[in-house]
């Protein structure tokens, strides 16, 4: 019975979210405080109802209520408790419910934050967030049915997809969803400011912050997804340009473009229409991404769940695309630029170039993701667009983007004169040229890795120079010691210096990608017990195999000792592992054995075994550690940029404030 109540809760939430949407838009239009207050209540009520529904589904999962179709399909008795909990987002219906839950969470956070502020915007914001909730509730009530029940209660469930039984796969979707769902908030503010015609600098500041938060989660989610692919899929890579990965990457690209161009609007009052377009594009790409992953329209190894949600998504996409374009055109006269560009050699121009590249890359990725579908429709032949295409098309663009990332920060606002240009660029350029020369002479003569690593060094040099000059300037002005000066710099100008830290993270990721793209060494070997294989100066010796039964799986673990210096020095014994799940024996998962060095990862995959020998794929992946370090730096830098500015020095309170109210 409790599950009947679960579906009833969703129906009530559906009605309330629809009511809240109407009341919000209407209240914003008529400036009625009553209607606005009702829209706030609707936000809280929907959140409460969806949370209650999610709790009921969690109860079903944790208490092994296999009469629920969802629980039967995605859980089993022997599943560890942790994964029973995470099975909520392991399947179609549950993950849509989870999406809705997170969206309600964000909506409540926004509503509480702006409970007494932005009175003109908030009814519209509530309404836009609620209409998104409404859409997902329509899916939950009419299409995917998380609380569908059988007439009887099966003894045990089917088990969770083995690939999802991994720590990273528990955290990664949360992060990704937090990012995706959160990007609804800037869109809601954009719609609200257009509808209320309050298009001043006000919404820009709010939106920057509320984009940075989901952007941080999205970045972390993408990195964690790569980590999962790297550790679990066992093919030596971390990114496959898979449609689902692309779906998470696309909004990241446009959101990143937006985070840059919004700065120009904040500072100079330019690019107002373009920024609106970027916010909207990001939102559309989020919905499109959910659509492609949930509808299975594009075949993909990740599309675990497929069902008939397609037409709903298509309808909603058409609605948000056309209604927003209409709204934007209607408000166009209010979005005129307030100032003009002074020079091509200015940070404004650099930001423009950055936006051009980001949207160009986003278009290419979108095009490549959907091209197989177009091609199949037109030519009837199925082709694949995979890593070779993506690398060839986006590779040069990323290289250019990295160069811009070095140039941009060195340009001042408005105009940079020739002598200042020279002053700024001499050192980084000299250093980069020197590096390129040495690299060309001593390491390799391949063009792309050389250019790529040179660009990475160039950006790093400019960032270091920026910090140095900033600290020196601050010292000159305040006489603080270098540490305090650095600290104060980041604290008082977090937007800029936090941004540089993020850039540094991106550079590290870039270097790791280049290393993995061009300098991987690999071998496939079958080793008898005690036998060794040599690769890249390391010796890998197979010591034996063990099998151990865990809750719902058997873990086969091979022991491989890694030696350096031609077998003279033991570095570590790693244990690549295969898990064979009781419920899915034909889907063994892999846990790779890794020894991480700053210069390279030694990565061993167990492919198969017989009585006294085993087959391994061994990879030496250069610089991979820095991919994860870069991810950490991105989160850190974003936090610095997000951290509230220290309060301005307060003036002693006057006896009475002469405001007549």
């Amino acid at each position: 019975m409790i599950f009947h109540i679960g579906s009833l809760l969703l129906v009530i939430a559906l009605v309330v979210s629809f009511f809240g949407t109407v009341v919000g838009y209407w209240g914003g239009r008529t400036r009625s405080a009553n209607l606005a207050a009702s829209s706030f209540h609707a936000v809280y009520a929907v959140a409460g109802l969806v949370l209650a529904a999610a709790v009921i589904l969690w109860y079903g999962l944790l208490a092994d209520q296999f009469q629920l179709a969802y629980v039967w399909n995605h859980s089993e008795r022997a599943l560890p408790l942790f994964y029973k909990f995470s099975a909520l987002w392991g399947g179609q219906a549950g993950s849509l419910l989870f999406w809705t839950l997170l969206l309600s969470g964000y909506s409540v956070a926004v509503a509480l934050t702006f409970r007494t502020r932005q009175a003109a915007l908030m009814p519209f914001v509530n309404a836009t967030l609620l209409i998104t909730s409404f859409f997902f509730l329509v899916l939950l009530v009419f299409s995917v049915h998380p609380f569908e029940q059988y007439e009887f209660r099966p003894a045990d469930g089917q088990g969770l997809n083995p690939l999802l039984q991994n720590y990273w796969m528990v955290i990664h979707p949360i992060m990704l969803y937090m990012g995706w769902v959160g990007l609804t908030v800037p869109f809601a503010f954009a719609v609200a400011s257009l509808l209320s015609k309050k298009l001043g600098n006000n919404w820009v500041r709010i939106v920057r912050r509320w984009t940075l938060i989901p952007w941080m989660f999205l970045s972390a989610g993408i990195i964690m997804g790569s980590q999962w692919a790297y550790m679990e899929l066992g093919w030596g890579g971390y990114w496959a340009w898979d449609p689902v990965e692309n779906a998470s990457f696309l909004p990241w690209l446009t959101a990143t473009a937006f985070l840059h161009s919004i700065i120009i609007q904040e500072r100079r009052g330019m690019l107002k229409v373009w920024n609106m377009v970027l916010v909207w594009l990001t939102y559309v790409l989020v919905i499109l991404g959910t659509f492609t992953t949930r509808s299975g329209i594009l075949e993909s190894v990740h599309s675990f769940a497929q069902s008939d949600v397609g037409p709903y998504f298509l309808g909603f996409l058409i609605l948000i695309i056309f209604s927003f374009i209409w709204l934007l055109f209607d408000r166009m006269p209010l979005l005129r630029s307030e100032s003009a560009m002074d020079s091509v050699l200015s940070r404004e121009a650099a930001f423009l170039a950055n936006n051009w590249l980001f949207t160009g890359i986003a278009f290419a990725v979108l095009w490549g993701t959907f091209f197989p579908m177009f091609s199949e429709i037109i030519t009837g032949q199925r082709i694949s667009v995979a890593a070779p295409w993506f690398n060839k098309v986006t590779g040069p663009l990323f290289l250019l983007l990295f160069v811009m990332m070095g140039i941009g920060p060195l340009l001042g606002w408005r105009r940079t004169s020739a002598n200042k240009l020279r002053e700024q660029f001499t050192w980084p350029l000299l250093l980069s040229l020197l590096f390129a020369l040495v690299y060309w002479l001593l390491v390799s003569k391949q063009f792309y890795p050389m250019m790529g690593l040179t660009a990475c060094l160039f950006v790093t040099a400019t960032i270091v120079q920026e910090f140095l000059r900033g600290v020196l300037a601050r010292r000159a002005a305040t006489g603080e010691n270098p540490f305090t000066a650095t600290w104060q710099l980041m604290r008082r100008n977090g937007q800029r210096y936090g941004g540089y830290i993020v850039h540094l993270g991106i550079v590290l990721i870039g270097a790791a990608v280049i290393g993995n793209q061009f300098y991987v060494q690999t071998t496939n070997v079958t080793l008898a017990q005690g036998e060794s294989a040599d690769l890249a100066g390391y010796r890998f010796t197979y010591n034996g195999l063990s099998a151990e039964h865990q809750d719902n799986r058997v873990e086969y673990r091979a022991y491989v000792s890694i030696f350096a210096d031609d077998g003279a020095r033991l570095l570590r014994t790693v244990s690549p592992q295969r898990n064979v799940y009781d419920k899915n024996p034909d889907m063994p998962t892999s846990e790779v054995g890794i020894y991480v060095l700053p210069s390279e990862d030694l990565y061993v995959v167990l492919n198969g075994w017989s009585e006294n020998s085993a087959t391994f794929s061994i990879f030496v992946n250069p610089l991979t550690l820095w991919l994860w370090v870069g991810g950490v730096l991105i989160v850190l830098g974003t936090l610095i940029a997000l951290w509230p500015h220290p309060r301005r020095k307060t003036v002693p309170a006057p006896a009475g404030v002469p405001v007549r109210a």
Partner: protein
Amino acid sequence: MNRVIHLLRLTLLLFVFLALGQPLYAQDASTVTADQVNEVARELWCPLCSGVRLDGCELKACDQMKDEIAIKLAAGDDTESIKSYFVTQYGPQVLGEPPRSGFNLLAWILPVAVLLGGGLFVLTRGRSMMQDIRPAPVASSERPVPDDDYARRLDEELARHD
């Protein structure tokens, strides 16, 4: 424990076939090492799963493809001819990128065209934005002399504005 042994046996069979077992007809290809096969497989893509490279794929169909590569390598074929063999066998899917002909050429052209078009647009827009600007700010004599009071207040506010 019994169960474990049973499972162990079961998966042994599975994996022996998957990874070690050279199919019977591949006897003559046994001189070809797995590394040589993967050298070729790295340039091919699994025709069944999208976005998975052949050397990293564990499907049986892909293992058979790898065996075929081994046979062809033993017969003295080079990488290009093996690739074109698989294209005729499975279609252009195995290449991992659209062929550069017919409709599929669009996959290559459009991103470049959009990028160039976008660049041109940004450039012309940027130029028109720059033309708007007046040559020089109004000379200071024309400007009304700012009252000291306001200037002082501005300095105060600036000092507070950190």
